[in-house]
């Protein structure tokens, strides 16, 4: 019976004793989280309204930082740069990530599956500073990439690969790729092999099976991967700082700089803008995806 037992609904915390138990279990973690998060976010809002005189924060509400942020064209440029960086990195991650995830699902021998997992996911365990620094070494003037390019006579003089947009994208894709592969992989692995076999039995070639079965069925994984990758790209701090060398300005970098320069109201406004940007992207993409999924369910495959 044990294995086949139908999962019963979990205990309903109906009586007082049970509610007390729930409170005792969930309460500490919740109290802990909210006790820090709520005042911290409240202070972010409060500080965004304050006034700065030189390097002194005057506690009068002027909303000056908002006006500055929304009227100075510099910030518009930063936001555009940030979106461009996130879009480019996400597209590259998807282009690399999908075949990678697909290839992993094709591996038969368990040892090789584990090896592939370690290859793709182990960089997650090392600090982002180590990874960004690794790319600084690789892409530097005297680094291995420029050495190979000059040895192969593809270039005459070392090309500039760091402290610019290209360098940040290379480092960012490396940082993000595990997060792109993971959702795709979980969707591809959950796919019922019987569906593909059915397509093959009905005489579909492998290309047709891929295009008409596997590819459409992996859409949810693609959406999830794109969303996660994009949001993480928007929020990246270490990679743009180290590989951008101050030349690739994005909101997280500005927030840190402004906190350091005692421009807290401006940093707070930038923080609010970053939250707004990422959350609205998630919200609209969820809306679009659910709409698209509903539409595709009605249409024949």
């Amino acid at each position, binding site marked *: 019976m044990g294995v086949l037992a139908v999962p019963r609904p979990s205990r309903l915390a109906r009586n007082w004793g049970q509610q007390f138990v729930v409170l005792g*279990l969930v309460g500490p973690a919740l109290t802990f989280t*909210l006790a820090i*998060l709520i*005042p911290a976010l409240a202070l972010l809002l409060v500080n965004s309204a304050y006034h700065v005189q030189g390097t002194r924060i005057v506690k009068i509400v002027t909303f000056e930082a908002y006006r500055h942020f929304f009227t100075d064209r510099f910030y518009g440029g930063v936001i555009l740069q940030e979106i461009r960086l996130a879009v480019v990195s996400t597209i590259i991650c998807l282009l690399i990530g999908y075949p990678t995830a697909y290839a992993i699902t094709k591996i038969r021998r368990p040892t090789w599956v584990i090896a592939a997992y370690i290859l793709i996911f182990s960089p997650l365990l090392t600090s982002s500073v180590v990874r*960004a620094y690794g790319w600084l*070494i690789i892409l530097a003037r005297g680094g291995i990439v420029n050495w190979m390019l000059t040895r192969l006579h593809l270039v005459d003089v070392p090309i500039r690969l760091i402290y610019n947009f290209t360098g940040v994208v290379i480092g960012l894709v490396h940082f993000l790729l595990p997060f792109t592969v993971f959702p795709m992989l979980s969707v591809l692995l959950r796919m019922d092999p019987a569906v593909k076999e059915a397509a093959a039995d009905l005489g579909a070639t492998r290309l047709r099976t891929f295009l008409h079965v596997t590819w459409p069925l992996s859409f949810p994984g693609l959406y999830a991967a794109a969303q996660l990758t994009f949001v993480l790209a928007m929020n990246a701090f270490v990679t743009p700082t180290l590989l951008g060398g101050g030349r690739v300005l994005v909101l997280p970098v500005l927030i840190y700089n402004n906190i350091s320069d005692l421009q807290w109201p401006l940093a707070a406004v930038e923080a609010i803008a970053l939250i707004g940007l990422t959350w609205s992207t998630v919200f609209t993409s969820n809306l679009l995806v659910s709409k698209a999924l509903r539409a595709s369910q009605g249409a024949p495959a």
Partner: protein
Amino acid sequence: MTAGRRDPVILALYTFLGLVGVYMLAPLILVIIDSFNPSTYGQFPPPGLTGRWYVHSLFEVPEFRRGLTNSLSVAAAATLLAVPLGTAAAYGLARYRFRAREGVRALLLLPIIIPTVVFGASVFLLYIRTGLYGTLSGMALAHVLLGLPFIITIVTANLHTLGREYEEAAMDLGANPLTAFFKVTVPSIRTGLIVSALFAFVISFDQVDVSIFLARPRTNTLPIEMFIYAENYQDPTLSAISALMIAFTVVLLLLAVSLLRTQEYRRLIERTR
């Protein structure tokens, strides 16, 4: 139907996978090579071999050693605090139904929905008012918040797979809920607990985006010291430290794998009996 070994499509896919693997490991491998490079500018190929960057980073830069001590104590404190808190919350979420459950779950996951830099800046504004700024305990508390969502997610998933039958059997046999939890539930979800502890530790140990807002020079963690060093200098000292961090991570990973391995074997043996 079965894809043979010489199938060109599969071969192409595997080649691609291999190239991606090279890309993923490249910065880690090059850091290790560079750590033995006598050239100060990380010239490639290295003109020779030296161990002096290790000596320099370990014994001549006090910031790195202090950073390491700070990092280890913060990560240990955050893990010790976050795992019991998260496990209790996960147990409450997985085993009880209560009205606000989904709301509570959402609130508990909030710290990872907020951009890390924004989280760091906001907690900084709080800490500067409450005197927690620049303290290691303040940093550990912030790291607990970052670890909790992962622990809760992992342990909840484990509890759902386990089911409640075993705990209930123990309680039917006269164990009180606490005994049932520690004697039945905890050993059964040990894999999840080990993985979540590893997550909590690594998240704290590698943290930069949040920590950099909360540390004074004296309380800088190792990744922050490295970040600052990387912004200002470029010599293989940082490669040596990075190589040591990679080695540390590998040891941690092997430790976790061996713990999990014995777990899996034990389960397998129990099943075959």
